[in-house]
């Protein structure tokens, strides 16, 4: 906006001095505020860094090279101070890179020295990370660990490292493929969860008599193929992954290392565990390695160690319970025979692991455990008898669309979803709060006509 007729008043010496003093005061305030804001409170303030970047870009167009070099140099020193406060501030490091990219003469050798200095300030964690990045073999890492830091082995990172599968080593595989004419159903189950979308199309486009499902990897190579043919006189045909394959799958979710390496590691770590008997990291590493090496032969030791871990590290009690549950279920699945019946009663299970591996199961006894949910029970498409008595279920969400279910022993009061199990004949709900209600039996029979219901 223009302003007219304003008289220009000459500045007196006194006024000028006052103004200068005011400016100096403001500058002091600005400097104090920024250094306080950046160094004492938080150097991760993006708006401040962005304003500074704008100022530098402006200065690049107005200042000489020498002046610029000096100012940028000062900025680097300032940044060093900020990094001392918070060496892991992303904003600070990014601004530093901006300065290096824009200053007339950047000394990258000095920068490298600084990085090395900060790198050495960080503890062993980062070193481990870089070893991982270089993808050293497991035993190399063990070796390096022993050499670099005595006693430092038994921390969290090393525990993970010994039993780690590198990302991307696990492929989804088709565990089971079933084609049923009787139920007009094509059923495919995978070893791991995957995005079905485009797979669905392939499955459904299968011709009436021959269904082949291919699972393709990223680069288009076929990871797995399963085919099933349905002859005119059969209603159903299926193809399933072998138990040996499942054993490999269970091991791979723990480690991608080969058996010999794992056995070697286990020996070493058991030696260490004897020296530090109450060290949870060593204990957990032993447990995981034992599971990977040979779960059935070490079963007793694994369960004992897990029991000890539960009391030693009570904050992660439920984690150990779930690990134990998964381990027991894996052992049972591996030992599953052709009878298609699985008895898992009274094992203290807190959840049922790997339901996707049991689409063929006909009888499942899960009574007397501590199950709290049944979310993925619709995997059991051939299940006829399900015993869930004496668990801690709050509802039976997930027990639905089970076309073969005939007998259900249940200790929950969420019944409505059972209407979708059209073959259900027997239902036992004794000991449930709902049994105290006077007309429970009538209401249940109304809800589930044709089902024999027991309430007491």
């Amino acid at each position, binding site marked *: 906006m223009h302003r007219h007729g304003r008289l220009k008043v000459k500045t007196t010496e006194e006024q000028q001095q006052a103004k200068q003093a005011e400016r100096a005061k403001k500058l002091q305030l600005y400097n104090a505020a920024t250094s306080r804001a950046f160094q004492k409170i938080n150097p991760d303030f993006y708006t401040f860094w962005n304003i500074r970047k704008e100022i530098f870009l402006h200065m690049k167009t107005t200042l000489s090279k020498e002046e610029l070099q000096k100012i940028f140099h000062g900025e680097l020193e300032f940044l060093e101070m900020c990094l001392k406060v918070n060496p892991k501030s992303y904003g600070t490091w990014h601004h530093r890179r901006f300065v290096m990219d824009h200053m007339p003469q950047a000394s990258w050798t000095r920068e490298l020295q600084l990085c090395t200095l900060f790198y050495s300030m960080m503890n062993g964690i980062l070193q481990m990370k870089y070893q991982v990045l270089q993808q050293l073999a497991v035993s190399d890492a063990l070796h390096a660990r022993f050499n670099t830091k005595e*006693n430092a082995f038994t921390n969290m990172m090393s525990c993970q*490292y010994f039993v780690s599968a590198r*990302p991307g080593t696990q492929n989804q595989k088709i565990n089971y493929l079933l084609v049923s004419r009787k139920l007009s159903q094509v059923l495919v189950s995978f070893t791991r969860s995957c995005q079905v979308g485009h797979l669905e199309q392939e499955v459904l486009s299968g011709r009436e008599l021959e269904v082949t499902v291919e699972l393709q990897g990223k680069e288009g190579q076929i990871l797995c193929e399963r085919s099933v043919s349905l002859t005119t006189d059969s209603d159903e045909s299926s193809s399933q992954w072998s138990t040996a394959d499942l054993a490999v799958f269970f091991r791979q979710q723990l480690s991608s290392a080969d058996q010999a390496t794992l056995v070697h590691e286990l020996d070493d770590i058991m030696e260490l565990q004897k020296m530090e008997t109450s060290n949870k990291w060593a204990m957990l590493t032993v447990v995981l390695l034992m599971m990977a090496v040979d779960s059935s032969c070490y079963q007793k030791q694994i369960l004992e160690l897990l029991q000890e871990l539960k009391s030693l590290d009570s904050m992660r009690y439920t984690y150990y319970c*779930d690990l134990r549950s998964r381990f027991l279920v894996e052992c049972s699945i591996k030992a599953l025979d052709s009878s298609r019946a699985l008895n898992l009663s009274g094992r203290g299970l807190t959840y049922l692991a790997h339901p996707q591996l049991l689409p063929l199961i006909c009888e499942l006894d899960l009574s007397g455990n501590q199950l709290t949910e049944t979310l993925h029970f619709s995997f059991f498409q051939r299940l006829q008898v399900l015993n869930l008595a004496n668990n801690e279920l709050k509802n039976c969400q997930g027990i639905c669309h089970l076309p073969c279910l005939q007998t259900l022993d249940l200790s929950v009061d969420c019944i409505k979803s059972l209407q979708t199990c059209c073959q259900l004949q027997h239902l036992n709900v004794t000991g449930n709060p709902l049994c105290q209600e006077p007309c429970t039996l009538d209401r249940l029979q109304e809800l589930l006509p044709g089902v024999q219901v027991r309430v007491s």
Partner: protein
Amino acid sequence: MDSPMEVKNRQLNPDPVSCGTPVKDVILPDNAPKELLLQKHADYIAAYGNKKDDYILTLYDAVDEIDIDNLVKWVVSMQQEDGSFYGDKWGEVDTRFSFCATACLTLLGRQDAMNVDKAVEFVLSCMNFDGGFGCRPGSESHSGQIYCCVGFLAITGHLHNVDADRLGWWLCERQLPSGGLNGRPEKLPDVCYSWWVLASMAIIGRLHWIDKEKLRRFILACQDEETGGFADRPGDMVDPFHTLFGLAGLSLLGDKSVLPVNPVYCMPEDVIRKLSLNNYEVDER
């Protein structure tokens, strides 16, 4: 720099269970608050209530107020060829920008404007051997980035790529003897991780792996009885950032006096439900 209180509270843990590397932790003062001071927090938050932004507009169901097309155009222009996102024109790449961009576009119903496949590819390339995620490929796992990446994968429908057992264990190991959670191994506990860690665990269905009661006590101990609000640690200065994450954390822990919070968007569940954005599956136990 550490506040004097922090230094006083800090101790090296003599716990033999954790030997090998020392555990940094705090001790909860005996006189720390043990109840949730809801009215105090309401007063504290009200002081910030007049700052409206995108987030507030979604909450108030008023996103029409903004120039959506222009906004979408700008966010999409931040996506790089490798699928990653810049945070702004200065070019810093970080998985947290992948999350911000995707969450923002999805809240506006415009996820289709970005290259989702490429974005997923970039985020998955930041996954580490421990099941966690860093800010760029090869960067150390960090709870903040894990939340961003897991949230991003939930929004885009790619959660099946997460090794929930492996990541869940790493996350539950973040709980320290004080009950508080830290962001990485060997770091101090902080109330904001009651969100980053806890929300990640909720999204992958492993929330039950931490000691909820101990964490609740830690969060409550970080309240300021005078002014309301939460601090990072007991006795420190409160701020809106930690106040949000303290309250949201309590909500995830099942506190009935706070509205249920959505673990992906960190917004009230009913707002997210109204937008029909729950396209991921959570196994709650």
